[in-house]
Every structure is written in structure tokens, then in C-alpha cells.
């Protein structure tokens, strides 16, 4: 068990978190997340699922406890460095889209990292194809449907080739056909040894795809 725990890519060690002093939302939570595994995080509204996801990706800091990303204490790494290892999909995808066109949105990280134009073009074309975004390359991310926006956000995250993905309610606003496509795509990523933590209320989607289900309720986490 301990040996398995040591292999975890993402570890939460006895973490507690509160938005208001004295009102703990998450109490002494310990959990581990592995590459090549699909973990679903479920729980009632307001139980702290999104908060937990934000803590795992370094957006929020814990009151007590430690988070380790690839064996490095998250306190010692910048958000930029975390972003190279963990991709985080926000509950509202529009909150993470900021470029004027879909193409620029997907190319954003690489253009800032000083990659060549040829490399960026190839990467963008690859993502456009994978996420069926053909014809939307020059569209504004704010003028496309929610489902398309979500795909653009995912494409933009995955161009960085993270080792782990945290998705917050990725099935919201998707019809059953799109959900099926998303499941297929996530399965492909899992096969490529990418780890997935999916925060969701979508019972059917979880039952069909998750390897492990963690339930947050009353501030504590349990495997179900």
C-alpha cells in the first residue's frame, strides 16, 4: 500500500482548507492520484469538490497539510511550473479563454515559450483535428457554443502535454453524442499514461468511465 502511495503522481497529505476562519470545508484529507488512471470526484453541491480540484492544481493554498506534484511540494513551485505538469479545466470554460481567436488560444503557451512557427502551426492543426474544431480556427472563443468552448479549452491545455488532467464538470452542456466523444478521448489519454481526475455530478458518465470514485461529503473524502 505504502509503495503504491509513493508512486502517486499527485498526493494530498492530511490537508485542511477553509474559506472562513474556523469553518473547515475540507478536514484532514489524504488522497493519492496516479498516472494512467481515471478518478472521479463526486459529492453534493457545496461539498468542496471544485475547491479540492483547485487545491490539487495549486490555485488555492491549504490551511494545513501538504500537496505533492510528482514528489515535489506544491508550495515550492510556481503556478507556471505546475501548469506544465497539470492541466486544469475550469467549470466555466470561458474563464480560461482569453485569446481573440481559437487558433491563438491553442497556440498561446507555445508562442510564449518561444517555439518556432512551424512547430506551433503543426501543434495547432493537430489539436484542431483531434477536437473537431475545423472551420473555427479564426472564430472568437466567445462566439462559439459552450461545447465548442470546452473543446477549445481542453485543446489549449493539452498542447502543453501535461502528465495529469483535472477536469471540473466536463460534461456540463454536452449532449450524449459529445459526452461519448469526450469519454473516448479521455480513454485515449488514459492509454497514453495520462492521469485524470474528473469532478462530476454525471452519474452515468462516472459509472461508465471511472476506475475509482472518491466522494467528498461533510469535509471528508471516502472511496466508494
Amino acid at each position, binding site marked *: 500500500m505504502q509503495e503504491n502511495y509513493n508512486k502517486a503522481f499527485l498526493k494530498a497529505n492530511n490537508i485542511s482548507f477553509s474559506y472562513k476562519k474556523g469553518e473547515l470545508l475540507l478536514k484532514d484529507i489524504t488522497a493519492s492520484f496516479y498516472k494512467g488512471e481515471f478518478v472521479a470526484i463526486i459529492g453534493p453541491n457545496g461539498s468542496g469538490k471544485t475547491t479540492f480540484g483547485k487545491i490539487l492544481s495549486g490555485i488555492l493554498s491549504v490551511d494545513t497539510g501538504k500537496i505533492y506534484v510528482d514528489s515535489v511540494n506544491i508550495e515550492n513551485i510556481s*503556478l507556471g511550473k505546475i501548469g506544465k505538469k497539470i492541466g486544469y479545466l475550469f467549470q466555466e470554460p470561458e474563464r480560461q479563454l482569453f485569446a481573440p481567436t481559437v487558433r491563438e488560444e491553442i497556440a498561446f503557451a507555445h508562442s510564449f515559450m518561444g517555439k518556432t512557427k512551424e512547430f506551433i502551426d503543426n501543434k495547432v492543426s493537430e489539436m484542431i483535428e483531434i477536437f473537431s474544431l475545423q472551420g473555427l480556427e479564426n472564430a472568437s472563443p466567445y462566439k462559439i457554443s459552450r461545447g465548442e468552448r470546452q473543446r477549445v479549452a481542453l485543446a489549449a491545455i493539452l498542447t502543453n502535454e501535461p502528465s495529469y488532467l483535472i477536469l471540473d464538470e466536463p460534461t456540463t452542456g454536452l449532449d450524449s453524442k459529445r459526452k461519448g466523444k469526450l469519454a473516448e478521448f479521455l480513454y485515449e489519454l488514459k492509454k497514453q499514461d495520462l492521469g485524470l481526475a474528473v469532478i462530476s455530478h454525471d452519474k452515468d458518465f462516472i459509472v461508465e468511465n471511472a476506475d475509482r470514485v472518491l466522494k467528498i461529503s461533510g469535509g471528508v473524502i471516502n472511496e466508494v
Partner: protein
Amino acid sequence: MKFDPRSKLVLVFSFSSLAVFVKDIFLLLIVLLLSFLTSNYFKGDWSFLKRIKKFIILFLGIAFLQSIFAPAGESLLTISGLPILTLGGLAKGIRVILRMMIIIVSATIMRGSSSREIIQALVQWKIPYEIAFMVSLAIRFLPILRDEAKDVFTAIQLRGIEVEELSLYKRFKVYSYLFMPVLSGVIYRARELSTSIESRGFRAYPERTSYIKLRLSLKDYILMITSMLFTLIILILYFI
């Protein structure tokens, strides 16, 4: 003791006017101290002090720029014969910081009044309801805009961009990406909000009645007269 928002607005206006017209640093310090004490009496929210900690560098930068571009008096720091820091310039910089502090601290006096009460105060001062409503909406949505900008900045960093390691030019470029989503969010929200308020009968009738009616009491009159007199006396003594 609850005061009418109009009397508090007069008080804020008095402090802000003093901050704008007074140039003497010692007097500005006294006004700042008074605004702190008044804000404390009105249970002002001082949590902003933590937030403005981040702006200290900006304040100091403004003070420094003032000092460089408006040199006066004895030179304190000279590089190649060029006065970089002068006594007069430094005084101007300190003045700017004190003025900003007075305006921010005095604004916290309004903390105890709800946005609805502030609208009503403006309406009873014969300011058209539409304008008063717009002012209150702007105040209401400022924290949301701040949160959105913060989220976008987080999203940018999570794309693997280490902002602190970027050159100044690239850093500015990153910040320029914050405008687009925030602006589009504002436009989207304004559209939704206008539809929503119109569907609830906003401006359906030329005359608007209000459930809330503010009434000035004796203590409000005393507060208004005292603060106006205090401001006038200081300004008269100061300028004569």
C-alpha cells in the same frame, strides 16, 4: 447610531475635497488621521488595507515618478548632474500617496450603508434613478470583475507560463490578455442584465415610487453641517 447615507456622503465629500485642495503634508496627515478615526466610528471595512499592500509598489512608483518629473528644491540624489530625487519632488510624491489614502479611507465610511440605501440617497438628491442605479451597479460588479481577471491570470499561468521569468515586454503582453475576457464578460453581463431588468418592468412608468424613504434626523443635520463647516474653515484658513 445609524446615520443617513446622505450625511455620510457629505462627510466623504468633505474629506475628499480637503485631500484635493490641501497641499500641506502635515495638514494632509491630520485629515488622514481624522478620516481613519471617522471610518473607525462608522465601522468601516479596513480589510482593504491588506489588499492595497500589493499596490504599495505602485504608490511608491507614482511618488518616485512625481519626484523625477517635477523636481523642485534641494537635490537629494543626482546622477550625472541630473537631479533624480529632490526635496520638492519627494514632497509631491508623499502628497499623492496621502491624497490617495484619504480618498480610499474616507470611502470606507459608506460601508455601513447598503447599495440600495445609497441609490435612494442619490435619488432623493434629485439625481435621476437610472444614473444612481448605474453607479450602484458599477460598485456591485467591481469585485466580480476583479475575480474574473484573477481567474484569467491563473488560467494563463496554468498554461505553463512562468510570468515572473518573462521579460518586461512579454509580461505586459500577458497582462494585455486579461482585458479581452473581462471586457467581453462586462458586455455579456450588461446585455443579460438589461434584458433581466426590463423584463421586471424597469422604467415601465415615468414616475417611480420607492418602498424605502430616507429621512434626515437632527444628528444627520449636525453631521452634515459640522463636516461642511469644518471643511470650509480649513480651506478658508488655508488659502487666506
